[in-house]
């Protein structure tokens, strides 16, 4: 059921977050949700080679852009809640990078909204990743991938 009094919740922060706790808060005061889809993006260790990821971001625009994407999702799907949390700064392998939670009374709406938000966030949210390797030889910017651009085609009617 769409709750017209609420909009998406977007947070950009350097500190880590507790997925379990946020998930609990998102569902505790509503017994009519039905479906909760959670996406957690974690920092991969790239086969043990990665020391850390450094996420540069455009403060202000990062929040504004994710909010714009989330509001489009909110307008398109019957959602109760849509939460997006994105970290910046130095992130160690295994740590959280991003969290998206979509709640709805409809399972597919929750899946699609979360997937949509992630696809757009990947290519439109102003974050840039730099990899710091354990052997210290190089620190390279992660390239954007065509695959991420192509993922957007799925949503061209939205």
């Amino acid at each position, binding site marked *: 059921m769409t709750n017209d009094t609420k909009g998406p919740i977007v947070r950009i922060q350097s500190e880590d977050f507790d997925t379990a706790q946020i998930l609990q808060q998102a569902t505790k005061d509503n017994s009519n949700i039905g479906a909760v889809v959670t996406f957690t*993006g974690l920092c991969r260790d790239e086969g043990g080679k990665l020391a850390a990821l450094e*996420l*540069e*971001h*455009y403060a*202000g*625009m*990062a929040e*504004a*852009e994710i909010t714009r994407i989330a509001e489009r999702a909110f307008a398109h799907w019957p959602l109760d809640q849509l939460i997006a949390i*994105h970290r910046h700064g130095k992130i160690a392998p295994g740590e959280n*990078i*991003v969290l998206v939670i979509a709640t709805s009374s409809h399972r597919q709406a929750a899946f699609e909204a979360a997937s949509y938000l*992630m696809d757009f*966030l*990947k*290519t*439109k*949210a*102003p*974050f*840039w*990743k*730099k990899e710091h390797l354990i052997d210290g030889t190089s620190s390279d*910017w*992660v*390239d*954007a991938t065509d695959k991420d651009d192509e993922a957007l085609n799925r949503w061209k009617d939205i």
Partner: protein
Amino acid sequence: MKILYFAWIRERVGFSQEEIDLPPQAQTVETFLTWMKSRGEEFDYALEKDGAVRIALDQEHCNDFSCSLEGVSEIALFPPMTGG
């Protein structure tokens, strides 16, 4: 005009932001970029890959390089994003 640089574009320019008066010919995103590249080697190097440069006007993406800069107070230049 406030100009911001991010990621490897920032590294190539050598700093992350500046406050600058645009010349009269920089009316659109396209003419602004042409002028930027003429400012020196580091700018030309930072902005050489035309397809790779993304631009935001007042914190909104601009995909149309014929966009006017009138009324804009903040321009950001950056490579394709890799969030998420």
